[in-house]
């Protein structure tokens, strides 16, 4: 069966699912209870993290297994601010984003030196180090028990604190919509083309005179900032942060979300994150303890059934010291 061309045109391919998603996000809360709404909030926060992975893995050819680390940094920034009485949501988002960006700027200097699987493993190692530090730095982070009973935020100075799951959802949705729009706008600009070109053929970019390492470092920092933004949102949703938020499996799950969503689509990454939250927290409800099993099956199905999504995450062509010509 041939699909009519009009259905494949870009506005239709992106606009229709986008519109459906938007309608769902706006309408669904009215028919959901607090649990369903908070799951949606969680999915959005995780979705922002997934979008940051899509920038790295999908656009820049840097498949990361440690993006939960800047996410964790953002979440802790929000937690620490709350304990010091800074409960303005917008301010927390700003600071969490900046601190995570600074964190990514430092770790990026290390990670960006590596390629392909080595990058995967370096980010994994950096992630594990971050989780360890979060558990050990007790005076700041509260240690392995995490930070709990975090004060509800006020979106803007002078506004009332967000007391219900519903109000938190609207805040998270607004913040996510704004940041995704910004990401979308940037990736659709020539900047996105630069990143895609680096992913397609890094050596050619260098030969053409592009400072590829600088681009990728900047992408790494931007993705880190975005992950930090997601972390702040997650802290708002859960009112709780612990080192476990930065775990290796969180990083792997968002990579799966990106695969499910099609590698270079922010909207897809958001949907992928939604699917993962639905599986992990909702579908597995009747089979307590078997959430990992369902996720494992999802990984397996995704690898075989969605080759495009996986292939979209391409390894950077490694520096090859070629043989004699």
């Amino acid at each position, binding site marked *: *069966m*041939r*699909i009519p*061309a009009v259905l*494949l045109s870009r506005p239709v*391919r992106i606009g229709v699912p986008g519109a459906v998603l938007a309608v769902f996000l706006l309408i669904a809360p009215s028919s959901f*209870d*607090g*649990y*369903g709404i*908070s*799951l949606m909030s*969680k999915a959005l926060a995780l979705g922002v993290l997934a979008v940051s992975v899509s920038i790295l893995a999908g656009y820049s050819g840097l498949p990361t297994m440690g993006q939960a680390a800047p996410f964790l940094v953002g979440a802790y920034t929000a937690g620490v601010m709350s304990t010091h009485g800074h409960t303005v949501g917008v301010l927390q988002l700003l600071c969490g984003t900046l601190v995570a960006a600074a964190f990514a700027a430092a770790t990026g200097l290390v990670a960006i030196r590596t390629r392909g699987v080595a990058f995967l493993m370096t980010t994994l190692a950096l992630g594990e180090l971050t989780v360890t530090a979060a*558990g*050990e730095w007790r005076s700041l982070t509260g*240690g*392995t*028990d*995490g930070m*709990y*009973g975090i004060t509800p935020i006020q979106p803007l100075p002078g506004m009332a604190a967000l007391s219900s*799951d519903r109000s938190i959802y609207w805040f998270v949705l607004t913040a996510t919509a704004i940041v995704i729009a910004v990401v979308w706008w940037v990736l659709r600009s020539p900047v996105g083309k630069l990143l895609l070109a680096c992913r397609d053929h890094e050596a050619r970019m260098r030969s053409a005179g592009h400072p590829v390492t600088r681009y990728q470092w900047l992408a790494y920092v931007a993705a880190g900032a975005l992950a930090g933004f997601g972390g702040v949102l*997650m802290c708002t949703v*859960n*009112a*709780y*942060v*612990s080192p*476990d*938020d930065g*775990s290796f499996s969180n990083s792997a799950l968002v990579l799966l979300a990106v695969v*499910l969503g*099609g590698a270079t689509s922010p909207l897809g990454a958001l949907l992928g994150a939604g*699917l993962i939250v*639905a*599986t992990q*927290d*909702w*579908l*597995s*409800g*009747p*089979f*307590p*303890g*078997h*959430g*990992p099993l*369902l996720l494992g*099956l*999802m990984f397996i*199905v*995704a690898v075989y*059934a*969605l080759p*495009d999504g996986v292939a979209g995450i391409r390894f950077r062509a490694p520096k090859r010291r070629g043989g004699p010509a």
Partner: protein
Amino acid sequence: MFSSRVSVRLRAAVAVGAVTALAAAGCSSSTSSKSSAKGDAPINIGLITALSGSNQALGPDHLNGFQLYLDTHNDMLGGHKVTLKVGDEANGGAAAVPVAKKMIEQDHVLAIAGIVATPTIQAVVPIATAAGVPVVNTGGRPTVKDVSHLWTMSFMSTDPGSSMGPYMAQNVPGSVYAFGPDYQGGYDQLRGFTEAYTKAGGKLANDGGKATFTPFPNTTDFTPFLSKVKASGAKAIYCFYTGQNAIDFVKDWSQSDAKDIPLYAAGFITEGGALKAEGQAAAGIITTMNYSPDISSAANRQFVSAWSQKYNGEAPPATAMYSWDAASVLDQAIAKAGPNPTPDAVNAAIKGMGQIDSPRGTWQLSADTHVPVQKWYLRKVEMDGTALANVKIGDLATIGS
């Protein structure tokens, strides 16, 4: 060519969606509650425990103790047919937040029982408290800001150490080397011990006079830590370990330079499956616990015989007993809360509860901390019939405030 790629993608997405939908259908049919109520309106009780992740070895006992009480009480608590909603706290903390929210918002549970890890308590209790749902906690208890809806069936994390400290100060002829895992529960456990022990005149043999914390969960080999014990001249070891750490520690201890140095510990080190895995290596370990299966009381006999009947003649671990008590406390509180119990009424009923008759002996909840005021026992791992068991060899202090 392009269109065929898209259609592959569409088909694949549909396939994934179909799998999801099937699974959703499966779960919705399995959640439909069996409402064949005898007596009053059926009620839902939530039970959060570790069924996957790094604490999963500890989880099943929490579930099994509660389930055993229901099995032996006609699936009823306080005259109401109970549907148990089980949730997985996985690695604790963030994973438990949606689980608790689901129990409260969707299942409208009357109370939440269980909880293995201390991070889970910190994450769940604020949510439950905000919703007015009591949490009847069966794992270790950390310090919590607002305890109005938290009721602990087990102990304060510092209690085992506090009970053992003075005893060791009096009975160990020399210094003691103290170990624990590097996480909050470990710090609390060891703080309980070192404070009570040094207050009673004891001196730690560790470098710098502070307890040693081993990296968690990655330590599998304790030999290097143990070789320091011998060198320190310590006359005994005190430690707190659970699960896999406990097994590795005991095995390594029994084959190290420190094997002649007596091992004292919080009782979890030789509880349930851990003791089985350790085998002869555990012989002679002296532990403190608020329970021993050989306590002679009617309540304990009922519990032990029910457990061993269900689980191949095994002795019940303390954790299962806490969970049994959680069910028992809820049973009484729900009965008191009237024909249409609300979470608030149940919470108030628990608050008003006096002496609780339990397999461990009678105990009551502290008005301040909502933790049991209870007696601690000194136990030793010895042959009891054909198998090693935690045999009660004496009483320690009654602890709780």
